[in-house]
């Protein structure tokens, strides 16, 4: 019975039966490959995040509701964590690089917690990044020749070795989010001491 349950678990999570609608775990950062530019113009990629715990999430700056809410939520969590976040990498990756240039990302992140970085890449590098994080996004036309982006709004946590360490759901209350981040920070301290 247990074997059957395990088998069903495997079949659903990794096997051929994995339905597209079930969120998959991001790869370890060490297995991802993509190149982007951060808000100050430096070349960055998944290996840039190794050595420190990190928080990564996707969005776009033409997003009026979900993205400013996520950036505000994260800014609040970081305020709560205080000095503990000094060595943490917090990265906002745009899914809309056609509008989100390096300059646009730089201005946008400047309104939030100073630890938050803004990364943008080409369309193909954006696709490679999203694939590594198992994130999805889609361009959707709106009224008046405009478009918006549907996108994964979860926040991903990684430890300093780049191992996936958990997800914070969109708009998760601070009392749940902050302890999750703190656990990753504590684990990293134990590993390094």
């Amino acid at each position: 019975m247990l074997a059957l349950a395990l088998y069903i678990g495997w079949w659903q999570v990794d096997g051929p039966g994995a339905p597209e609608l079930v969120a998959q775990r991001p790869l370890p950062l060490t297995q991802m490959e993509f190149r982007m530019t951060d808000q100050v113009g430096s070349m960055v990629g998944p290996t840039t995040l190794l050595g420190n715990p990190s928080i990564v999430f996707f969005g776009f700056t033409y997003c009026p509701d979900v993205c400013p809410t996520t950036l505000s939520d994260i800014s609040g969590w970081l305020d709560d964590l205080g000095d503990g976040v000094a060595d943490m990498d917090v990265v906002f990756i745009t899914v809309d690089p056609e509008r989100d240039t390096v300059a646009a990302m730089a201005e946008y992140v400047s309104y939030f917690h100073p630890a938050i970085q803004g990364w943008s890449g080409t369309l193909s590098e954006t696709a490679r990044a999203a694939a590594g994080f198992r994130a999805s996004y889609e361009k959707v036309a709106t009224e008046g020749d405009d478009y918006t982006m549907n996108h994964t709004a979860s926040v991903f946590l990684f430890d300093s070795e780049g191992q996936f360490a958990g997800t914070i759901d969109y708009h998760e209350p601070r009392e749940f989010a902050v302890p999750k981040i703190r656990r990753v920070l504590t684990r990293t301290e134990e590993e390094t001491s």
Partner: protein
Amino acid sequence: MKPSITAAVIASCLFIGLPTTTVADSEDVVVENAWARASIGVNRPGAAYMTIRNNGTDSATLVGLETPLSMMPDIHETKTDANGVSSMAPAGDIMIPPGESVSLEPGGLHAMLMRPQIKMVEGETFPLTLNFADGGTLTVDVPILGISARGPEG
């Protein structure tokens, strides 16, 4: 005799029906805690939030928005699916039962301000008119808070 009774019944129904269907509903609607975030330039759509309370005895139906700030204001709803993917779409008409309220708040319903005409500057306010199904309107001044505001208190 019969036809005239029917006519009288119809006439009295119309007379009694008039106040409840065309006057009473949106007059008792109030808006609380309205706020919006400042914008970067005028290319990005904005969003405004508020609580709309119906203190009346009949339901009120919000059917549209108007504001000089935006060419295309509309009520949108953000939804996040089981996979964590967020999307938003026009919410259609919003019915508010008597004695109840509807909250427009981050991650749910919002007044989507598409095609902005004016930059939304922190510290300023802008007028937003709510149009109701009975033809009634309600205009509120929405305070513009910082880009990183989380609620009506900032």
